[in-house]
């Protein structure tokens, strides 16, 4: 069946029909989610049969809103950010028909969670330097190596994995991308305790892990191009709803200022007002980006948004601790725990301060983001690359 893609009105009608046929309060959540996927109302811009209807991407927020307002069960996107945000678009772009049909539905419903085996101890910002080896062995590959900063590895059923399959060519050309079964023999997940005391991330050791060739994503040697798709999707703006004024961290600090007059000093007042203005500027910039996306005119402003967010979150969380004075000396809990999502609001100011330090490192460091803006937006010359035409095996390590 190939009809014209639905518009906003048509989608609204289909959501209404779906909700009439599947009463959210009377339908088992997983059954509801599977049916929503099958109706093409999961991610409307995906193709028919793969959770979508081939509709324009910007119509998704309205569909999500309609389901939320009807009290529909959610697929808990906060637990499967890697799967929904990175694995799914990559599988859609590079997967075989069989891979798409196998992986996308349980990914979207949350039955199978995903993690990302990208970074390594020796390959962070320079991802293409990675050393995890995959060696062809008949219909399968044997993988050996170590990955790091893997959130959700202890919960995930599947991972997207980048490996080195040809050390004899320059680093960007010898990589291959796989879907890795996290329950396979040889996959070992170890919690990695962090600055906050908890283990939000993991180290993953891969020892003789067998991956069938059918779980390769893209061609052999095409791993860098596939990874680039993944990473670009990581930075796609969420879109969604407009944030309220004084939302997020600044709201916490503003409330503290109002509630505790004894903590006020002129210097803190100035710092608070500066942060308030910067937060409002960041919020309005996000809103402008949202309006651009809604108008079908995405701009490059998203690249600056993460940079600004990281700086602000660090400033404001530091300000909060200072404002608290004596109480700022205390911490809530150093117990090593393994959370499945980051929650800034339910922890102590000390935790917020420490966790915010990760904002300028995770998902692309602020330094790399500045390079991206300088080179791709402003068109400035690229960094001098000493590793460009050198085989990976000959690079200094």
């Amino acid at each position, binding site marked *: 069946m190939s009809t014209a893609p639905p518009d906003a009105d048509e989608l609204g009608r289909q959501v209404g029909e779906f909700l009439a046929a599947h009463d959210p309060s009377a339908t088992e959540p997983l059954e509801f989610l599977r049916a929503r996927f099958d109706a093409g109302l999961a991610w409307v811009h995906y193709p028919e049969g793969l959770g979508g209807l081939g509709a324009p991407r910007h119509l998704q927020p309205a569909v999500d809103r309609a389901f939320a307002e009807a009290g529909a069960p959610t697929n808990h996107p906060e637990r499967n950010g890697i799967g929904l945000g990175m694995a799914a678009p990559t599988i859609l772009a590079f997967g075989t028909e069989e891979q798409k049909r196998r992986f996308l539905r349980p990914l979207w419903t949350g039955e199978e969670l995903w993690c990302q085996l990208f970074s390594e101890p020796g390959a962070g910002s320079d991802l293409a330097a990675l050393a995890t080896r995959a060696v062809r062995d008949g219909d399968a590959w044997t993988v050996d190596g170590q990955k790091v900063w893997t959130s959700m590895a202890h919960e995930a059923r599947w991972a997207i994995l980048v490996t080195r399959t040809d050390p004899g060519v320059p680093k960007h050309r010898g990589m291959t991308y796989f879907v890795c079964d996290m329950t396979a023999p040889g996959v070992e997940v170890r919690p990695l305790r962090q600055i906050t005391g908890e283990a939000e991330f993991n180290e993953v050791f891969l020892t003789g892990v067998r991956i069938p060739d059918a779980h390769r994503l893209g061609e052999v040697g095409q791993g860098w191009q596939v990874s680039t798709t993944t990473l670009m999707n990581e930075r796609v703006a969420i879109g969604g709803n*407009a944030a309220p004024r*004084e939302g997020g961290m600044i709201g916490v600090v*503003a409330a503290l*200022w*109002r509630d505790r*007059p004894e903590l*006020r*000093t*002129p210097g*803190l*007042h*100035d710092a*608070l*007002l*500066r942060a*308030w*203005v*910067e937060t*409002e*500027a*960041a919020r*309005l*910039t996000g*809103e*402008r980006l949202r*309006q*651009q996306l809604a*108008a079908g*005119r995405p701009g490059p*402003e998203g690249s*600056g948004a993460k*940079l*600004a967010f990281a700086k602000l979150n660090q400033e404001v969380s530091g300000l909060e601790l200072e404002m608290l004075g004596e109480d700022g000396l205390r911490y809530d809990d150093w117990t090593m725990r393994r959370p499945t999502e980051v929650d800034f609001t339910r922890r102590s100011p000390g935790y917020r301060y420490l966790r915010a330090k990760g904002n300028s490192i995770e998902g692309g460091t602020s*330094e790399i*983001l*500045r*390079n991206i*803006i*300088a*080179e791709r*937006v*402003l*068109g*400035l*010359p*690229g*960094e*001098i690359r000493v590793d460009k035409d050198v085989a990976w095996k000959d690079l200094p390590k």
Partner: protein
Amino acid sequence: MSDLLYSEIETDLRAGVRGLLDDKAPWTSVLAGVEKDAPYDAELWRAVAGQLGCAGLPVPEDLGGAGATWRETAVVMEELGRSAAPVPFLTSAVVATAALLAAGERELLAELAAGERIAVLAVPFSTPPGGAAATVRAADEALTGEVTSVADGMAADVLLVPASGGLYAVDAADARRTAVTSLDMTRRLADVAFSGAPARRVAGDLDAVRAALLTGAAMLASEQLGLAERCLDDTVAYVKTRYQFGRPVGSYQGLKHRLADLWTSITQARAVARHAASCVAAGDGDAPIAVAVAQAHCSAVALKAAEECVQMHGGIGFTWEHPAHLYLKRAKADSIALGTADHHRAALAELVDLPPA
């Protein structure tokens, strides 16, 4: 939420204004102009105000205006900021026009909208929207007193003077005006003195003055945005072509990262300036907050952009013959005009209930 994008009409308007400024106000002629005694570029003003009809953008059509809004006016401000154009647009077509609109004064307003006369609000250019200290007294339709550092004071045909709790119009010929050597040579100041100058009352209170300063501060944010964009564009173009140590200096991370940060700040300046313009255009109750945010943010961004422009141009950026100093002087003056960033943050403290220590 206000519309933060540019409409098609605004994009066309921008192209028209930019084309005219490229033609009639390239930086070489702006630079040449600062050496002259003329307080502003009269030919350029006739083109902007008359030929393009920009002076009356927010004025209703039945008063001779274009019947547009402060949003479109803000786009013109961006372009004038880009070229540091020496025309009394902010002072006459924005602040004085906003005062007359608020006061309901029709005849003078129509003349300003048509670009036939220039009026300026006689307050120090540093006055924040909160209001000015009254330094002029009104008695029997005559004014006495002095006002210092009035922007475009020498360009004005008419002075709008806050005095004794009201607003008065005075023919500039009836005031004693002294040109001031100004930091910003593209928007010059004058000291103005009145000794029994005949005056006509246009408002019985100072509400119109406050509204005019608020609108002026909103529009100034767009001028600062345009200036910052120009500084970034010029600097990026320069560091791509200037070679040192065998590579373009723009390939060094030390400069690239600063330019990336500047670009990020400018994207934010665009959002807050658009928001402020939309809020004053709509008469939104949140306009004072939006304007304070815009001024607190954009003043710093424009100044940073101009300072980086000077620095990253190296020696040439420090010379008189390069336009960087025109932008720096305009940016520094703009950061004081209509209230410093600190003034606006203090205003915010009250508006959003974050009281001082």
